[in-house]
């Protein structure tokens, strides 16, 4: 996979930087039957972002974008916590499963709404999902009644903070979702249809692809991923914060998709690239803490690194920089003669 070489290289470089500042950065050990280590932490804390970015990948492949995922994260977490807080026994597995079901069903419904606006009504995706991005925060606060709902439920805690088979439970969820998407898009034909619609919507329609239904499914799936991420985030802190849960995660997710090599122009997408992209962003966050960047400059630092990553990813930029180093300067143009450059 040549396409994945650049993001993989960048991730490796970032990890190596950490090794300089943190001893035993690559060390993984088993304590009390659980895997521990910095690498495991990156995966574990990055799990919600990976999920959201995976859903975003499919949306972007259809030439769309979903800005509402952050709000869906908040809504899903709030819904689950609200349901659990009303349970008589918060540890009842049945009750927790019911709460999760309600939260995810709500997420899917919101995604279907997004897809409907985009596919049937024909609103541009950035506007259609902006509606839910803004209104969704309000909806989340409505659900929590403006408060932060705190719960105390061991089964729910498992999703974001627990372990299973020595692995953090979040990593297992990501692995299952990733395997499912990979199967549906690459072993079944969904991937081809998505790439076709993203690559040329009119040609796809004339080839008999039901693009409306396809778009609705994709947006619903993206919201489902965001919903699961919302469960993880709220479970990890055993509370739901309608205001801040998943704030700006849509931007990180879009960034992860782009770093992973899926073009915002739609068409070809890369699930592996997106996972690498999300890991790069999570590693960067970890790095910022470990090398001790002052808190007030973390955003600036992050922006700087991301800019460099994007420049390195750009074939046009690479061609310019590396060519000008290797080749002598082009012959100078005689004065007074006009030259038109064709690219």
């Amino acid at each position: 996979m040549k396409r994945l070489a650049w993001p993989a290289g960048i991730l490796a470089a970032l990890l190596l930087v950490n090794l300089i500042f943190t001893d035993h950065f690559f060390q993984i050990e088993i304590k009390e039957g659980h895997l521990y280590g910095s690498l495991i932490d990156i995966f574990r804390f990055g799990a919600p972002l990976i999920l959201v970015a995976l859903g975003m990948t499919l949306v972007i492949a259809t030439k769309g974008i979903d800005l509402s995922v952050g709000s869906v994260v908040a809504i899903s977490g709030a819904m689950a916590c609200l349901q659990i807080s009303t349970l008589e026994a918060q540890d009842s597995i049945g009750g927790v499963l019911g709460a999760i079901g309600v939260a995810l069903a709500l997420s899917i419904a919101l995604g279907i709404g997004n897809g409907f606006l985009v596919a049937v009504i024909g609103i541009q995706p950035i506007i259609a999902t902006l509606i839910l991005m803004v209104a969704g925060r309000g909806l989340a606060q409505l659900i929590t009644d403006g408060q932060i709902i705190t719960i105390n439920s061991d089964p729910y805690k498992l999703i974001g903070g627990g372990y299973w088979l020595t692995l953090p439970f979040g990593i297992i969820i990501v692995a299952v979702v990733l395997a499912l998407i990979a199967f549906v898009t690459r072993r079944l034909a969904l991937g081809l249809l998505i790439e076709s619609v993203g690559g040329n919507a009119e040609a796809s329609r004339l080839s008999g692809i039901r693009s409306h239904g396809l778009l609705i499914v994709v947006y619903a799936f993206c919201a489902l991923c965001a919903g699961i991420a919302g469960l993880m985030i709220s479970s990890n802190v055993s509370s739901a914060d309608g205001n801040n849960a998943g704030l700006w995660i849509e931007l990180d997710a879009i960034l992860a998709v782009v770093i992973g090599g899926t073009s915002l122009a739609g068409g070809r997408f890369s699930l592996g690239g997106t996972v690498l992209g999300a890991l790069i962003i999570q590693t960067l966050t970890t790095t910022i803490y470990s090398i001790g960047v002052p808190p007030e400059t973390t955003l600036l630092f992050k922006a700087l690194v991301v800019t460099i990553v994007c420049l390195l990813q750009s074939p046009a930029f690479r061609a310019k920089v590396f060519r000008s180093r290797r080749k002598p300067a082009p012959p100078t143009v005689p004065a007074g003669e006009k030259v038109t450059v064709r690219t």
Partner: protein
Amino acid sequence: MAEAILRMTGIGKEFPGVKALDGVDFRLLPGEVHALMGENGAGKSTLIKVLTGVYSIDSGEIELAGGRVAFAGPLEAQKAGISTVYQEVNLCRNLSVAENVFIGREPRKFGRIRWREMRRRTAELLRQLDLPIDVSKPLSHYSLAIQQMVAIARAIDIDARVLILDEPTSSLDAGEVAQLFRVMRRLKEQGIAILFVSHFLDQIYEIADRMTILRNGRLVGEYVTAELPQVELVGKMIGRELAELERLDERPPARTSDTLVEATELGGKVAPFSLTIREGEVVGLAGLLGSGRTEIARLLFGADHAGTGTLRIGGDQVNLRTPRAAMARGVAFCSENRREEGLVPELTVRENLILALQARRGWSRPVPRKKQDELVAKYIKALNIRPDNPEMLIRNLSGGNQQKVLLARWLILEPRLLILDEPTRGIDVGAKAEIQKLVVELSDGGMAVLFISAELDEVLRLSHKVAVLRDRRLVAELPNDDTLTTDVLMETIASGGAR
């Protein structure tokens, strides 16, 4: 004869793989309306783009008012006195008429715009064109024809000596066309040379003094309009001199099989038409570009919605709302617009080839990879697709090979009616013959084919009957018997059904 204001000699322009212009000579006299004629792909728009500085030329020279010029861009051409008004009015509809005329060169005093003088000068300018309208109203307030004339006013106010009107009449009604022609005659009197492009032959004969005909990037000739009958014009555009038009000897016998498609007064973007297609029958659609050929195809494929009339396919009355519904009835449509309606450029040859089949099966039943490879290998061989690498991105193939892949996309479905819109345009002679042979074979195998082509001899060679279109109206349906010749077809296209 007056000295030419514009003279182009031996113009050559090459794009990768295509000679768009090959040694074309062209001249424009002051005070004339000159029509540039040719079928799609003949090189008209390339010539205009060369003239307006959009493209640079590979060979030849351009002289304007006696001096040699080479434009580096549209702005330079405009400054030299060559103005262009395109088919789509490129003005700002939300601004006022006066603002549109003076945008970018507003009269100023101490850096401030002198609105009053701007309005006064615009009104005066439009009065010269017999157009007394309120210049402070937004442009969107007026009809397309008036917008077009505002664009012309803007063009001539920038001291134009040559005015290029590229299909200005395509979206105007008869009254608006008359108004436009009045303005054109007035400009003519002022000594402006007008280059006029239109697909409507009647309009050419009404307004143009002389014409230059191009075909396949080469000059056919320069003619005085009044001395060239319409039939000969069509012949020269399509590429058959009257003298050499010979009857084709092999003539497919008429079909008597069951009726597959029956359209009755079906209408949408074309005037209501009736047409039947039998099983195994090849029906040719003849007519010039823009005559409504593609619109009929799209109606039968459900790509456009029919406004009136009924359609029966295989005996059942159907209401095709989507291409998918038409596909379920066994209709396939290979569009003439490869790039926008056919190719998915980022996908491979294999993926493009199986796309319609996969769409029919849905997302949950993938075509097994082995089956895909078999199908792709079969059609790459059958249609001689080059290079024969199924994993290559289709955008890297030549036009003719892309066309074959798209054709294969539909053949895989084994449709009952295959609609081919200009399947042989822009592809080399060998590939053309292969596709023609394929049509005959498919028809012998019982598949009905609706064959659309601008090349009349091709239509005659393949069709059992020919429907002729003119100005978005089906004007004649002719059985392909011994009396039907390209002559007769051209006559029908030119005159509109009077046989």
